[in-house]
């Protein structure tokens, strides 16, 4: 098996913690992974992405080729759209619905959504409201991951286990909140 994932967002939105959980779940299965990240200047509120590759065979390139990503997971709708040239023709896009507006020329959100909806498989999920309603503002990214679980083709229990491993040091309350967020995401992806 091979899954190529692009994680997209704005610097500071926490896309790397999503990558960490998926990566941990892949490692627990004994799969190969490569995860290219963006550090440095763009982290200051610019667009950031991470290429996460998982495979049962050794992986060469750290970067994903155009037109070959299986899943795009985005914390922000315009950032989801930015990477559409990387999406494979049957690929999935899982995106948060709230725009992150830190530029004066942010495009019309309707236009963004219309463009996203022209892609083959798109899931929009309002992670911000869900996080707020469930009193877990810090776990919005895990809600998004939950919504992406099926598209990733990963065993849900493995993702749960990965959350337990990665958040263990932060205590049971944090682990439970993130597990709950994951479930909320899966159940609310429409």
């Amino acid at each position, binding site marked *: 098996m091979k899954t190529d994932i692009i994680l997209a967002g704005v610097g500071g939105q926490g896309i790397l913690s999503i990558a960490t959980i998926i990566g941990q779940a892949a490692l627990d299965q004994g799969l190969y992974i490569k995860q290219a990240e*963006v550090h440095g200047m763009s982290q200051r509120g610019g*667009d950031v992405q991470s290429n996460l590759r998982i495979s049962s065979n050794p992986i060469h390139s750290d970067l994903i080729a155009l*037109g070959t990503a299986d899943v795009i997971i985005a914390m922000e709708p315009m950032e989801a759209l930015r990477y559409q040239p990387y999406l494979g023709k049957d690929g999935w896009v899982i995106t948060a619905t709230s725009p992150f507006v830190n530029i004066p020329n942010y495009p019309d959100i309707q236009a963004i959504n219309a463009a996203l909806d022209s892609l083959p498989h798109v899931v929009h999920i309002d992670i911000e409201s869900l996080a707020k309603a469930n009193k877990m503002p810090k776990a919005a990214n895990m809600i998004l991951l939950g919504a992406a679980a099926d598209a990733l083709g990963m065993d849900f229990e493995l993702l749960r286990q990965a959350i337990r491993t990665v958040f263990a040091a932060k205590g049971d309350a944090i682990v439970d909140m993130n597990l709950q967020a994951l479930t909320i995401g899966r159940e609310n992806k429409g």
Partner: protein
Amino acid sequence: MKKLLLGDQAIAQGALDAGLSGVYAYPGTPSTEITEYIQLWHRSHPDTYVHDRWCTNEKTAMEAALGMSFAGKRALVCMKHVGMNVCADAFVNSAVTGVNGGLVVLAADDPSMHSSQNEQDSRFYGKFALIPILEPSNQQECYDMMAYAFDLSERLRLPVLMRIVTRLAHSRAVVNIADSARPQNALSDPADAAGWVLLPVRARRKYSELTAAQPTLQEASAGSPFNKASKEPKASKAVIAAGIGYNYLMENYPDGAPFPVLKVSQYPLPVDAIRALASQSDELLVIEDGQPFIEEQLLGLLPIKTVIHGRLDGTLPRTGELNPDNVKAALGLASAQTFAPSATVVGRPPALCQGCGHRSVYEALNRVLADFPSSRVFGDIGCYTLGALPPYQALHSCVDMGASITMAKGAADAGIFPAIAVIGDSTFTHSGMTGLLDAVNENSPITIIISDNLTTGMTGGQDSAGTNKFEAICRGIGVADEHLKVVVPLPANMDEITRIIREEIAYKGVSVIIPRRECIQTLARHTRQKKQQS
């Protein structure tokens, strides 16, 4: 043992396991995580002595590492590619003195300039200094090459340059690491003590020895476990793939390429292997990240009939990093079908954090300078370089570490008024202090703003060498007390800040204004840490 590591972290772990006694570095993307990993490791190994404090700049780092090598111990110097320019004097001469304990210089290049002002290729420095260069192609090689590099350095008695690129530095993979570390070297005297004093008479002897050693370096490349030739028969093309370029090639041929391939990860170029490759095909494609370092050398090495493709003939783009797509095209393979880039998407450039002190500095500066249309503002390297972009658009230059002060001085010499320099605290101690002395000695009419956020912000908040010392440093260099002002850059203090800027512009000599307020990112981190402790 297996560990999921960034390329940078694999290098750090490899150095520790190879008996490292000290890392010397100044933070710079994409090299910062090497030193940070060693610092973190050190916290869980408090009884092992490994030097791991940040240095003031790459030159002090390089020299201190050479001192540690002189004493017989293994030292690592890490920097981003432009840091090589800062330490070049020490670096090139360290090849002439040679080393005692193993010395590895790690240069992290940034093709595509993700976080840099140029895409210079550090391999040229290695060739220039006449020393071996290693170029790993994956995270496992990052790890494995460190022990190899230190051994090679001690065997050849030369520093070894290791060159990586952003995509390797900042990508994670599982790495097999040793269960135990090699012990550190004991103190020892260098074998050739006289050769460390580079008086012309001795330097001439050492330089002859260095040039005479080149065939040995060539043999080391020929026998390197990291240079590999595939045994494919003659074909219409053959490929030389260096460092990370090898991955992008193999990505397209997971079961092996159907033509001869030479993987190059150690230099000087393995000349015999390249000639052998050229005898198997009349067309060669060179896949290398950065500048056409190999390609240019081939032009003088191979028979005229060999056609060489690469970055020079446009088969690969002349600038920018390699990626699976441009390598695919260079190999003549078809790309996957893609969705065209969406016309709806707009750029999202980075910006200063909300609440950052630099914002108040630019706000104040712009208010005052609105009255001085002839003013020019010389910027420097750091988060505050973002003041060049909207909404502030406050800077007229950003060139290299420290250039704000010296360029302002030169512009003032030429008659520009007001000439203003904006520099960060860490950049000031890195390379600004000497320029300040020049300005003070001539009492140049410039206004220098040292925007002090108490950290090295751009690279993620590392210690800044001059914290708490700036007034003393400026006074010591000779800035007059009455023209050395400290302010707190907050919107509430705008009147005071603008008044002071106006006064200091009016003064026809060197003034230094220090707006001081902690970076809000490190402030948040420190508050979190305090909360956890209590």
